[in-house]
């Protein structure tokens, strides 16, 4: 046994291996991640709070540029060293990850929290055999010897559905297809038995058929290991059948959060509604006009004062341009949303009707001035 693995084993005894779960596994409190750029401060994540229990799955949904990827990277502490400020707390198993040193974080990453990235083609090292890429974290975090690590790795490859794992162990990433590579990445992420898995757009680069296979695999592994999972995606269809709870992000903020069934049945935020409606349905006859969301996500350098979705929102009233709506409690437990004129309420219906008849109210001059400032 090498010095390093011996040390690892010794240090493992200083922490209780398993603590009776008290609070949630992960609690994110008022997390802010801002980037300093030439154009000003980009508020990529702007005050996000949520908590996640053991064995649960949270979906984070939003368009490109809504801050969902930066949110997951902020949780992992995987941010550039310069020109970034991160405020707020990320409490994982009663420890605040934002207060840990880089060395301490390295012991958490891979071992307790793992991440799967979007692009299976570039997340593997092309010049290192697959086997070594899996055993690396096993040997580092668990301090097992070479033989044992190989056995574990082969078992992992088999469990993620890779045929002939003994042979794949000695192959290079280019010898595998995209779907197979994503399976290898999942095997690496699962190697040390993490308690939390962050999957950032795990299937976006893949075909629909492979996407279904990979999502099923993630669901099975998550269930079998009683692991918590955060599934980040732009496609509400992907998270619909596979999460317990969904948080919808827009312009760096969570604008609606609810248990999955509640969100789809009783969505309150016009943005969520718009996202659902923009998905092409195979049940619609062909040439059905899609209900696209007009415009594009806002500039995160100079966010407008009121609701950030107001410029694209069919429900927007004058108040939306001025007052930013806070997260409000919905009727169902666990449902929160940030909207003055929620979908499906009398105010919401009246607002939509008013806009359809009289046109959407123009932004007040004050809002435009501050935007330009």
């Amino acid at each position, binding site marked *: 046994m090498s010095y390093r693995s011996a040390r690892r084993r010794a240090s493992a005894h200083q922490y209780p291996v398993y603590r009776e779960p008290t609070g949630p596994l992960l609690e994110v409190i008022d997390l802010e991640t801002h980037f300093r750029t030439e154009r000003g401060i980009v508020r990529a994540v702007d005050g996000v709070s949520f908590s996640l229990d053991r064995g649960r799955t949270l979906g984070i949904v939003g*368009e*490109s540029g809504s801050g969902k990827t930066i949110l997951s990277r902020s949780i992992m502490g995987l941010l550039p060293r310069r020109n970034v400020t991160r405020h707020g707390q990320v409490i994982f198993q009663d420890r605040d990850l934002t207060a840990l040193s880089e060395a301490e974080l390295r012991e958490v990453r891979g071992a307790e929290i793992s991440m799967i990235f979007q692009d299976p083609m570039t997340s593997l090292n092309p010049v290192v055999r697959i086997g070594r890429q899996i055993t690396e974290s096993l040997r580092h975090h668990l301090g097992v010897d070479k033989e044992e690590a190989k056995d574990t790795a082969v078992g992992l490859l088999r469990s993620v*559905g*890779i*045929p*002939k794992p003994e042979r794949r162990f000695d*192959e290079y990433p*280019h*010898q*595998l*297809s*995209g*779907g*197979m590579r994503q*399976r290898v990445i999942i095997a690496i992420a699962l190697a040390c038995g993490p308690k939390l898995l962050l999957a950032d757009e795990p299937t976006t680069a893949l*075909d*629909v*058929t*492979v*996407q*279904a*296979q990979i*999502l*099923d*695999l993630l*669901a*099975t592994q998550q269930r079998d290991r009683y692991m918590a999972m955060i599934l980040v995606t*732009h*496609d*509400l*269809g*992907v998270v*619909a*059948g*596979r999460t317990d709870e969904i948080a919808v992000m827009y312009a760096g903020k969570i604008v609606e959060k609810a248990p*999955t*069934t509640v969100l*789809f049945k009783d969505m309150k935020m016009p943005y969520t509604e*718009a*996202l*659902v409606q*923009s*998905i*092409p*349905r*195979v*049940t*619609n*006859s*062909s*040439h*059905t*006009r*899609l*209900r*696209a*969301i*007009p415009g*594009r996500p806002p500039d995160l350098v100079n966010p407008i004062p009121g609701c950030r979705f107001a410029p694209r929102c069919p429900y927007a009233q004058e108040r939306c341009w001025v007052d930013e709506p806070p997260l409000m409690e919905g009727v169902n437990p666990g449902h929160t949303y940030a909207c003055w004129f929620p979908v499906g309420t009398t105010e919401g219906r009246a607002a939509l009707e008013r806009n359809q008849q009289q046109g959407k109210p123009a932004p007040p001059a004050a809002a435009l001035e501050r935007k330009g400032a």
Partner: protein
Amino acid sequence: MAGSGTAHLRDGADPLLRVEHLVVEFPAGVGRKVHAVSDVSFDVVEGETLGLVGESGCGKSTTGRAVVQIPRPTSGSVVFDGRDLTKLHHEELRRIRPQIQMIFQDPISSLNPRRRVTDIVAEPLVVWGRGKSAEREVKVREAFEAVGLDYDSASGRRPHQFSGGQCQRISIARALMLDPKLLICDEPVSALDVSVQAQILNLLEDMKERYGLTMVFIAHDLAVVKNVSDRIAVMYLGKICEVASADDLYRSPRHPYTNALLQSIPVPDPEVPPAGENLALSGELPSPIDPPSGCRFRTRCPRAQARCAEEEPIIREIDPTHFVACHFPVMEEAGEGAGSAGGRLFGAQAGSSAADEGSAGAASDGPASEGAASAEAASAEGDSGVAVDPAAPPYSAA
């Protein structure tokens, strides 16, 4: 799935594009060949949109490119507007190309990053010497307006200053500059967010109307393809397996592969459970260097029988607008059940975890022998009454 045959070509109509027995092969060293497209035929009448759908590696993009002769196909004919493009010489082909334009998958890398977007869009006019500079500007301005971009704020800017969706709009504007008759869209929305995807799909529909275009729309997502297409051809490993009108294909998919594709589409409704590991398509695409004998889909097909390994199914008519290349097509009516996620018809596909058939990429397995073994396994499962409904006799051609 091997879908050779031309039963689905429409004789009466006068198609704008008629592709017959198209074969594209690439050398793979030491006398081996990649069978990218093997005997594919289809036609597109004027004003129609044909959707080509299938997984990565099924040859759909190669088919699209072979139509424009980049590269020239190994054999077969591509008749566009009465002329066989495969027989034309270089200069003749060049003169026809303005009438056929393409839009590619990655909107950002298909634009030259060092040029201004207005120059990129004007380029086709410059190449063909159409109009004076002022006239060109009018035309470019009009194209920008048509695709929903503001010419004045866009002029002078370069591609990296635009989002992916905007770059795709610019690509569309460029493709429309020479008033093409046929537009080939190769995965135009798969790199985009769902919300932007909807904008681009709507835009393509508008442009089709406005400029009277005929389209070939290539994508892997059946929901997207269905939204824009009149007729859909499903491809698998270089062959066509099913051709039908868009609504028909969804309502009553006949080919087991089409069925599997439909099941893979994520449904934005938590009440509809995902198809599950044993229902969705398992395994991976076999290597196109050494495709399976007989029906190329048999190694992954839940309905495969011994016959599928021996005999290649030929495309045949099921009803006048529906053609399938399968010995044992799915005949149960999806009927009302289609309301869920498009006829989840298979029974559980016994046993097999996700990927028995992993002759992935350039791996040097012997896919043929493995394929045969697993086909036997599959047919054994079929006999145990899992997948094949004994009440549905093998369908014989009408």
